[in-house]
């Protein structure tokens, strides 16, 4: 409730600032102008929204698959862990705006480079959180399974993987929050559609309100993605207080 009031106050102040001539609307449109542009340009922005959503969701899915595979591989095999960990960490060392044009150069203007860049941005938090979660499984439960002569695969499936789910979802939520950034940088490096592309074009045409409208959509997309992941977590991780019910 207080958050909503605070937000409205902020927007009200912003609106007043522009209307009273404190700032050039070309530089900073008023909230009402942004909403107007959102409505008027909806035929333009809707397909772009769909494209970017598509890139983000598929890229995130790819990141989940790759991240899970990497985390499990590193967890099971010390040799793979030694080999892969520097690569995993190193992959995050190069800033995305620098890598994006190179990827576009190699893979062109289509969907693939966008997916790759989103996946690149997203897989690290997923991998590292899942890996840590797998290692943190209850040692007593592991000993119990050992005493029952369980195979490595059974230990992973019955104890370690479920125990790692809370941590995995933390990683997923972080990835969801930054996935949109990856898509935008990818589009800026070279694209024919998408919200990031629309933003650049609108800026070039001095259509500030439309640019802000595109930004607003990106913001809402990121929030919706995060919210979807949090909802999924509540459904799946229902045995701890952060998930569903549990005794206090």
């Amino acid at each position, binding site marked *: 409730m207080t958050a909503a009031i605070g937000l409205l106050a902020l927007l009200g102040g912003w609106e007043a600032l522009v209307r009273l001539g404190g700032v050039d609307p070309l530089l900073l449109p008023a909230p009402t102008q942004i909403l107007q542009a959102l409505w008027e340009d909806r035929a333009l922005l809707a397909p772009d929204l769909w494209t970017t959503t598509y890139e983000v969701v598929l890229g995130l899915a790819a990141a989940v698959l790759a991240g899970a595979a990497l985390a499990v591989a590193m967890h099971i095999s010390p040799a793979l862990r030694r080999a892969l960990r520097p690569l995993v960490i190193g992959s995050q060392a190069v800033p995305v705006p620098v890598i994006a044009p190179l990827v576009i150069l190699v893979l062109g203007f289509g969907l693939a480079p966008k997916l790759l860049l989103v996946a690149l941005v997203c897989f690290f938090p997923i991998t590292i959180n899942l890996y840590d979660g797998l290692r943190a499984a209850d040692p*007593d*439960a592991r000993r119990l399974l050992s*005493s*029952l002569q369980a195979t490595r695969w*059974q230990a992973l499936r*019955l104890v370690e993987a*479920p125990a790692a789910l809370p941590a995995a979802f933390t990683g997923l939520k972080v990835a969801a929050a930054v996935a949109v950034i990856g898509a935008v940088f990818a589009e800026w490096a070279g694209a024919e559609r998408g919200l990031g592309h629309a933003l650049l074009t609108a800026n070039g045409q001095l259509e500030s309100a439309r640019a802000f409208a595109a930004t607003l959509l990106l913001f809402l997309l990121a929030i919706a993605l995060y919210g979807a992941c949090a909802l999924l977590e509540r459904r799946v991780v229902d*045995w701890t207080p952060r998930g569903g019910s*549990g005794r206090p």
Partner: protein
Amino acid sequence: MQIEAEAPVTGPPHVQAAGVEIDDVDVSFGSVAALRGVTLSVAPGEIVAVVGPSGCGKSTLLELVCGLLEPDAGEVRAQPAALMPQRDALLPWLSAIDNAGLALRVAGASRAVAREAAHEHFAAFGLEGFERARPAALSGGMRQRVAFLRTLLAGRPILCLDEPFGALDALTRLQMQRWLADALEREPRTVLLVTHDVEEAVVLADRIVLLSPRPGQVLEILDVGLLRPRARGERAVVELRERALEILVADRSDDGAAKRPSS
């Protein structure tokens, strides 16, 4: 808690296979000696309590019998035992009935078969109605009973119980001791029971092994030889308890200074 007479959980175990022979074993972890020269023989169907201070290697002894550890010297001859770890190790994402059936699932049974097998015993274990409950919704005593059912359903003739009641409050602990005595009466097994509670050992066991602080060595093995059921207030029980405590305490004060840092 209602206990009802019932058929055994599994068929009668082969007599020889149900014994445990521990022959002069040494176990060290790096430079730390956990057990030294421990020799112990457990007859099939016998309940042996292993008592000693923290860090004396009691859990290590159980791990040997469960096949989780190899001794550095000496030999352990036993079928792999079913382990009940110190903290119940119930999986928080599984319901009580799925936890109870875990051993069967590991052995390859389907979830339905495992649930059915577990379900038969829920009433006798005082867990009726809690099949679908998660461990977080169960009391400490109930969790231990689920863990014990899980241990029984592993179908092994030998059970290794690692301080099964350590995490319970004193009242629940007393109830659970009686409950365990009854349960083992109905489902006889060879049992190695680790506990730091001397009284618990006297009430439950046929023999008591007293271990010294690290490195664990056998101080003495006491024959309990009392009829069951035993009450903690009984004179014989109290006397035996005091005798065991004396032995344990005497060992500490004798060479506590010279041997090791206090555990």
